[in-house]
Structures are given as structure tokens and as C-alpha cells.
């Protein structure tokens, strides 16, 4: 499928297309830079669907996935992306590392740097932590999620999914619903989608709605049914278990009553509206199985597929300078 969003990126030479050393967030990326990464990912979608999935462009490079916060899906996705490009992928789990012994984040960063990583993928529980590390190391750093701040590759894979399924992002009405307050996925998606001129709505109970969110160019709603009117895309967020037991919402079932995406609710959106979820899902809480498994409208597994392609594109693009790719060195 050809991307329909016009991209000036194709006309720019080499590194001028994407002048950033790291990918710490969507904030700071220009619309054409986002589009460039999406365009780059398209080739990997095609390649991943073929029988021969290997490309050798990252051969000999060391990719360290430093995850200071537990993750299965994102870590696996980055690992597969690196391996499909033939990078030597090493995973560092903070749960079993010296971080628990009191080593500071900076010391850990310096250690990883001394091991001569060629690209570092970081997830951390504190907002801004990835940028802190990026300032201290010599190689490109990819943010795989920092606190409630950003999760840029998730936003890219979501944008790619929407673009492929809807043909464009421009003017698409996207409803992002759930724990917006604590969600880095919501923040990165808001930045990416508004940058590509989507019509973004966020929906959450007031206890989970961040102050001043409208200043990010979105329309806030507390009533899900109203928010869904005319929606082209419904993006549900995961609600952390520990936030459901009275802290921010009274209970699972009450959350489901107000914000659970049921078939009946989905009917309020545009016919054929796309259903998305970054996973892992709480089936029966924020999303019903009938919706999550909807053959035509659910794009949830496709999001996972796009995730690998987008991460391959990011790893490729960010290492082009060190690999001396023509026009990037």
C-alpha cells in the first residue's frame, strides 16, 4: 500500500531528512520526520511478511536493550527487530541487575557506554530518565518508554497502523480513552497524531485526566459515548490494576460501565471504525472480547506487527551515521 500522506522527506538528501541522534520522544520531531520513519517502516512490513526475514545491515553492531521496568512485549519486539537486522542483541533486565544494589542510573549508563554499545534501547519508570542517559552516552538511544512521559515507537506503530488501515491520518477523528493521566502511550500518540493533523479526542474520568491536556491540541471528554460520536479510530489504554481499586476509579466493573468498549458502544463511532489497544489488554474491563477480536474492526494484532517494522526502521535510521551510510556520515 502506498502512503497517501504527502512527505517532503523523500526530496531531502540523507541525514537532512532525520537530523536527530536519538529518539527520546515524538516531541521535537517535525511532521515530515515522523512521516519519514513511517515510510521507512513500510519496507519492513513487506519484508517481515515474506519468507526470508533477514537483512544484514546491522551486522556486527551491538544493541543493548536496557529495561529498568518490566516488559515482555516491547522488549520482545525490540529484540526481534534487532535480530532481523542481524544486530547482536543483548537484554539487560533491571530486576536482576546492579540497579537494585543502589547503582545510580548515570553509573549504569556509563557502564553500558563503556561496553561500546552501538545503540541502546531504554525503558525506565521515571519521566525524563531516557534523556538523562542519552546525554551521557556516545551512541544513539531509543526511548522504549519513560515514566508517564513518552513512548515514541508505540506512537509510530499506531500512526502506521492508522495510515495503512484508513489510508491517511489527516482529519481522522481518533478517540484515546482510559488512564490518560499516567499514560506515556497517550502522550506520544497525542503528539504524533496532532502533528499529522488528526482530530484527537481524549476521554477519561476527571481523576485520570491530566490538567491542561487541551493545550496539547486535543479535546477532552469525560463521557465516552459523546466522545465516540463520529470516531474513525478508537484507541483504548490499559488501566493498571493498582489504579482500579479505589485509588482513581472505584472498581473494575464501574470502569467498565463508564469506559468499557463494548460492541454497543462501538456502534456510536463511524461504521467500520478502527479499534486499537497497545496491550496487554484487560479483557472485560476497558475492552470486551467481542470488540478486541472483531475480525474487521480490531487492529490490535496488526499493531504488534507494525511494532516490529517501526522498530526496525528506527534502529536502521539511527545507526546510519555510525555505519557510514552514504549521505548520512
Amino acid at each position, binding site marked *: 500500500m502506498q502512503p497517501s500522506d504527502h512527505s517532503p522527506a523523500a526530496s531531502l538528501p540523507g541525514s537532512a531528512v532525520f537530523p536527530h541522534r536519538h529518539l527520546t520522544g515524538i*516531541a521535537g520531531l517535525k511532521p515530515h520526520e515522523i512521516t519519514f520513519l513511517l515510510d521507512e517502516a513500510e519496507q519492513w512490513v513487506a519484508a517481515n511478511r515474506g519468507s526470508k526475514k533477514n537483512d544484514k545491515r546491522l551486522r556486527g553492531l551491538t544493541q543493548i536493550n536496557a529495561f529498568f521496568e518490566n516488559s515482555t512485549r516491547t522488549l520482545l519486539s525490540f529484540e526481534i527487530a534487532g535480530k532481523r537486522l542481524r544486530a547482536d542483541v543483548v537484554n539487560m533486565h533491571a530486576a536482576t541487575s546492579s540497579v537494585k544494589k543502589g547503582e*545510580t*542510573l*548515570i553509573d549504569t549508563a556509563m557502564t553500558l557506554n563503556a561496553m561500546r554499545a552501538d545503540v541502546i534501547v531504554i525503558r*525506565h519508570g*521515571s*519521566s*525524563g*530518565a531516557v*534523556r*538523562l542517559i542519552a546525554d551521557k552516552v556516545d551512541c544513539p538511544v531509543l526511548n522504549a518508554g*519513560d*515514566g*508517564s*512521559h*513518552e513512548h515514541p515507537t508505540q506512537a509510530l506503530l499506531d500512526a502506521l497502523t492508522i495510515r495503512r488501515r484508513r489510508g491517511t491520518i489527516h482529519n481522522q477523528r481518533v478517540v484515546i480513552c482510559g488512564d490518560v493521566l499516567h499514560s*506515556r502511550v497517550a*502522550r506520544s500518540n497525542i503528539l504524533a497524531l496532532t502533528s499529522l493533523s488528526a482530530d484527537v479526542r481524549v476521554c477519561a474520568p476527571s481523576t485520570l485526566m*491530566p*490538567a*491542561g*491536556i487541551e*493545550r*496539547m491540541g486535543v479535546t477532552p471528554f469525560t463521557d465516552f459515548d459523546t466522545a465516540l460520536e463520529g470516531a474513525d479510530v478508537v484507541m483504548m489504554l490499559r488501566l493498571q490494576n493498582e489504579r482500579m481499586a479505589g485509588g482513581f476509579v472505584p472498581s473494575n466493573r464501574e470502569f467498565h460501565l463508564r469506559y468499557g468498549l463494548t460492541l454497543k458502544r462501538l456502534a456510536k463511532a463511524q461504521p467500520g471504525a478502527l479499534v486499537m489497544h497497545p496491550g496487554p489488554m484487560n479483557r472485560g474491563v476497558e475492552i470486551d472480547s467481542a470488540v478486541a477480536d472483531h475480525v474487521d474492526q480490531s487492529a490490535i494484532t496488526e499493531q504488534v506487527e507494525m511494532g516490529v517494522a517501526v522498530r526496525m526502521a528506527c534502529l536502521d535510521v539511527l545507526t546510519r551515521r555510525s555505519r557510514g551510510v552514504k549521505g548520512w556520515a
Partner: protein
Amino acid sequence: MTIALLNAQLVCPTGGASSGGVLIDGHSIAAVGTFAVPDDAHVIDCHGKILAPAIVDLGVFTIDVPACHAGGIVRVGLMPDQTPVLDDPGIVQRAALIGRPGLWIHPIAAATRGLAGKDLAEMAINRDAGAVAVGTGERWIADSGVMRKVLAYAGDLGLTLIAEAQDGGVLGNAVATAGETATRMGLPAAPSLAEPLAIARDLMLAEDTGAKIHFRTVTTAAGFDLVRAAKRRGVRVTCGITPAHLLLSDIAMSDFRTFTHLSPPLRDESDRQACLAALADGTIDILCSGHDPRGPEEKRLPFADSAHGMAGAETLLALALGMVRDERITLQRLIAMLSAGPAAILGLETGTLTVGAPADLMLFDEGAPWLIDADKMVALAGNTPFDGLPVQGKVLRLWKGGAALR
């Protein structure tokens, strides 16, 4: 020893501005203005620079003599949040003596044992050990019943309660003020409402008990409205602010720089404008540094994991002088906010250029330019949110009780 400081521009909170000199005899001021210079006096020509009472800094967290002296500070009100907490006469007395003779430390004793907000601390015993006020520290006394007893009891002793104006429940684990900046950064944030909520309750309790209360920092429009109205009603309330809250809004936090991680957190621009208005109309009584030097171990961390606080002692005067140049307040008012104002709250007999007062004096050049450089600060740590800012105003000479410190 007699010292004659001649040819100065005198600025006194009570006496106003004039040209002349100050005669120091021993520890005290012996004459002000024009006087006959005794034959044995050591004469210092001030070359027309400004001679004013030295600064009394109410509410520092760390004893940092070099930083204080660089900033023209000779007395500090020490916050009770020390290790161990200032809630015992032995600890209070040690703190009171540790900085002498160059820096007089006036301990603010904990109002409740261990600052836990439950049981009254021994206020009278700690007063006799050297405490000049009692305080909640950086904590919030959640139990209104306890807070009422604290104010009533402190009122009996004539001690001012130095209170922190942040409702702990609303504040939670916040490190930022709720709003666009905190939302974009994804930081734990609390609405600025946390401040006026606390102020409203504490003002009602102070009014009811007749006690004196001082809010260390007030930083919100709603907070100032409450203080303003209470002052009109005759409530014995005063409040302070740091230059950071006057000069910076929360946008300064945008690059996750932990030197801007302060308590209370930086507010949005509308609240900052309210701070400037409260400065101009006299609602704010004093300026303080909130001096809290924190090294890289506590600051070179992700924002929410870092310690709050700033090194403010040596930049206090220079940043405050900017308010005078911007014509928000007069120089005389500024000097009052830095000396006589805090001295009165703490019940100290200093802060004026009057005969018989302690010779706590500073001579400064209000126009001398310099650059705030975190790496070159004399403080225990250089965690200033003003790193790289060009400022004007340098302390040339400093005396505590007639002894030259600078």
C-alpha cells in the same frame, strides 16, 4: 575597636535613604549619618556604595557559611528539618552555637515531636535553648486538631509558627504543579490549590487562637488573596517568597533539569504574575533564599527521583536587586524585606541602622555585574535554577556584630 564607615549611601528600613556613614563601636552601631570620627577609629571609605543592614535569611535548610557570607547573610533562621530533627534542647542549642561568631544561626524548633504532626514538642524548653520560632518544617500537619493546639500553645509563648503552605493530601507525591508543562513532561503533579487550601485552614486557626503565623513561601494567586484578606482582618500573618518563584514559571522545568525541582514547585505564569503583584502591593513581607544545596548524588537523577531544593544564599541579593531595577519595589523596601522584616518575625533586635543596634552591616555595589555559574558557586553545591544568568549586585564588605567577615 571603633570602625568608621564613611562616604556611603545609607539605606535603612526605618530611617530611609541618606548619605553619610556608620560608626561601629565594639559590637554595636554607635552613630549614624554625620558624626565626629574618633581619633582611634579605623576609617573605611565606602566610595559612595550602599551600606545597609546585613541579610537575615528566614528558612534555610543547611548551614552553609561561605554561601551566606558571599550573599551578605549574617543570620539565618534554620529549618527544623535537620538530621536529627530540631525538637530537643540539646540539638537546638548545638545548632544555635555552631555558626558563631560569623554566622548566627537561629533555630526554628519543630512544633511537633519529630515533625510527625502528632504530639506537641517542648516549645518553651527549646526556646530557652535558643529557638526563636517553631515550625512545621516542610511537612503538613494533617490533623487540624493538632494544628490548632500547636498554634494555641505557640501563641502562649509568643513564638511565631513558621508554616509550610501545602495540603499534603492534595500534594501527594507531586513534584510539579498540575498544568500543561507537567502534563507534557508526564510528571506527578498536584493542582496549585494545595497551597490556598492549607493557607485557608491555618489562617482560620491562627485567627481563632490569636497566634502569629508565617508562611515560609506563598506562591499562588489564591494564596495571596487569602493572606491579603486576613491581614485586613488583623490576623497576625506574614509570608515570604524566594526569587525563584518570582522569576521563574514552571516552563523552566521543561528540559527535566532537576535544579528547577523546588518545593513548593514552580507555578504557572499567571501565579507568577500574582507573586509579582503581591510583592508590589506589600502582601509579601520578606524575601528568603530557601537555601538547600544538593549535590549530584541527589540531583543527577530523573526529575521525580531527585531531591527538591536550590542553592539560593549567594544569589538572593543579586536576584532581588533585579526587582528594584524593574521598579517593582524600592531599594528601601527590598532592604526591609531582607533584614528588618525577617528579624521582626523571629523577634531579633537587628535589621536597622540605628544607634545601639548590632553592627550587622553589608556594603554592596548594586550595579556590579556577574554571571551565575553553578560550577563556580561557593555553596556546598551549585544547584541553582539560574545557572548562566547574568545579574548585577555584589557584596563588597560584610560585618557581623562589628567583626569584618568580608
